[in-house]
């Protein structure tokens, strides 16, 4: 249950953490995913871009065990896995952080960090160990560089960026090694976004976490991620290291697609 796995510094890092091959998923007559493949290594950040309805959320929900694919295979650490439930995925170290759904506003930061994993005091009464929770929550936040005035603050008092940081910290603390971030920068001001971008960069630098980030903003995603992948109508239409592409190139691909639809 300890928070920090030993950080793998330098080489030989980059072991493959998660891979999906030809994943297909249809809901009735609507094909949400028409054979999508992806792979992410430890210490790598993959950005998944695309418009609404491109299949990004369905892909995430398959990787978190929420949906089961109609065809295709998911591998974790190179081994084929069946993700039949969210608990299955979690047991393999896969955690997804949703911006608005993750935290209970009326509870303190430390209660949120330990929700349903609360340490208990020794003795027959099984009482909550608030002191241990406060100390360990503060340590866990300090370790990944999330700065809050006090872990006793109610989450509802925090800004969107701080809440997102707490949610990410909780996933990391609970041993997430494959971290899926659903629109981590949506509806966030520049300063708030900076907070989260720096957090993601620190997590990547640890080298033991693979990050998949769903996003809308091309420029931001290229800045944060090692590699980006563009999804359109349930397929991956473009994939490139972030360093060798640009927001313009990505926009061009999307525009070409729309032009094709209009002239059809």
């Amino acid at each position, binding site marked *: 249950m300890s928070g920090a796995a030993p950080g793998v510094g330098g080489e030989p890092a980059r072991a493959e953490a998660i891979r999906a091959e030809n994943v297909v998923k249809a809901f009735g007559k609507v094909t949400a995913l028409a054979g999508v493949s992806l792979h992410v290594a430890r210490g790598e950040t993959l950005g998944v871009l695309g418009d609404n309805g491109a299949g990004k959320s369905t892909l995430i929900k398959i990787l978190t065990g929420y949906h089961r694919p109609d065809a295709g295979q998911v591998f974790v650490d190179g081994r084929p896995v069946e993700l039949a439930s*969210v*608990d299955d995925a979690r047991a393999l170290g896969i955690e997804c952080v*949703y911006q*608005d*759904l*993750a*935290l*209970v*506003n*009326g*509870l303190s930061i430390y*209660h949120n960090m330990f*929700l*349903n*994993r*609360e340490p*208990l005091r020794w003795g027959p009464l*099984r*009482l*909550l160990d*608030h002191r241990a929770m406060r100390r360990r929550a503060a340590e866990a936040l300090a370790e990944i560089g999330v700065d809050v005035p006090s872990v006793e603050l*109610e989450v*509802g*008092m925090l800004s969107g960026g701080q809440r997102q940081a707490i949610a990410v910290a909780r996933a990391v603390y609970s041993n997430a090694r494959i971290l899926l971030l659903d629109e981590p920068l949506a509806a966030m001001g520049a300063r708030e976004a900076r907070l989260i971008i720096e957090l993601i960069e620190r997590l990547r630098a640890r080298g033991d976490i693979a990050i998949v980030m769903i996003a809308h903003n091309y420029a931001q995603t290229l800045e944060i991620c090692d590699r980006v992948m563009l999804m359109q109508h349930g397929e991956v239409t473009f994939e490139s290291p972030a360093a060798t592409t640009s927001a313009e190139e990505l926009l061009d691909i999307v525009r070409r697609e729309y032009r094709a639809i209009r002239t059809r």
Partner: protein
Amino acid sequence: MLRPEASVIVVSVALIAYFEIANANFLTNDNLQTVSQFVAAPVIIACGEIMLLICREIDLSVGQVFALSPFIMGHAEALGMPVVAAIVAALAACALIGLAIGLITIGLKVPSFITTLGMLFLITGITLTISRGFPANIPGGPFLTGIMGAWGYSEIVWAFLIVAVMHVVLRHTRWGLHTTAIGGNIVAAAEAGIAINRIKIGNFILTSTLGGFTGLLEAFRVGSADPLAGGSGIMFLGVASGVIGGTAIAGGAGTIVGGLVGGIMLGVLQDGFTLQGINAFTFDIIIGVAILVAMVANIHLARLRGGGRG
């Protein structure tokens, strides 16, 4: 931020001071017993309702369970059980009613407001049927009767005991924390793997059992079981105690101590105005206004506190 309990304590102390100045009989042993009896029943019922309100449920039928439980005890005793066993049997029956409410609410996805509204009429019918509409004598020797309510302060001692236990449950156990989490953000609670249904059903069982226990205390105090005792009046006093003490009607926040001070404030008002000789009709107006003011304050405080979302 000013805690709601704190303002209620200030108001209660001011009321006590006012009644003591206006009427020298307020802080006498006799009157304190009377106040404590006004306070105890709503406070014990509030302990259950607060747990339910926090996880976004309510039990409207707890006052009817209150009336039913002494009759179950009486029948169990008439069947040859010792009185203590008959008390346990009555509480077990009340727990089963809570279980039924919980299973219907959760299993059939009926809002608890509706489930317990139905239960309210159903249980009244059962009580009237098994009592044939008449009060019944309460069994038991003087010692047991004294502990269970006949001694002037025994009800309030029970109330304080239950408040202490429930405060620990709400603030210092996983049960209480998860109850709060469910009311605050049910999606997040489910994401964290909290057994939402189990906790809600447990809180229904708790509330019915506490309602039945309060009914027993009142029956032992009065010396007889009354098929028309309790009812919606005692239920609303319990809910009002909780809400006056800061429990959010929309769930996710509340304290047991708040329910205690809310109940004390209502009891002091009730007793003080009775001592003053205020007409019962006027009295209902005053109580109604007090509850309205407290609830409006509660809702606006919640909006100020949480940023609203949940």
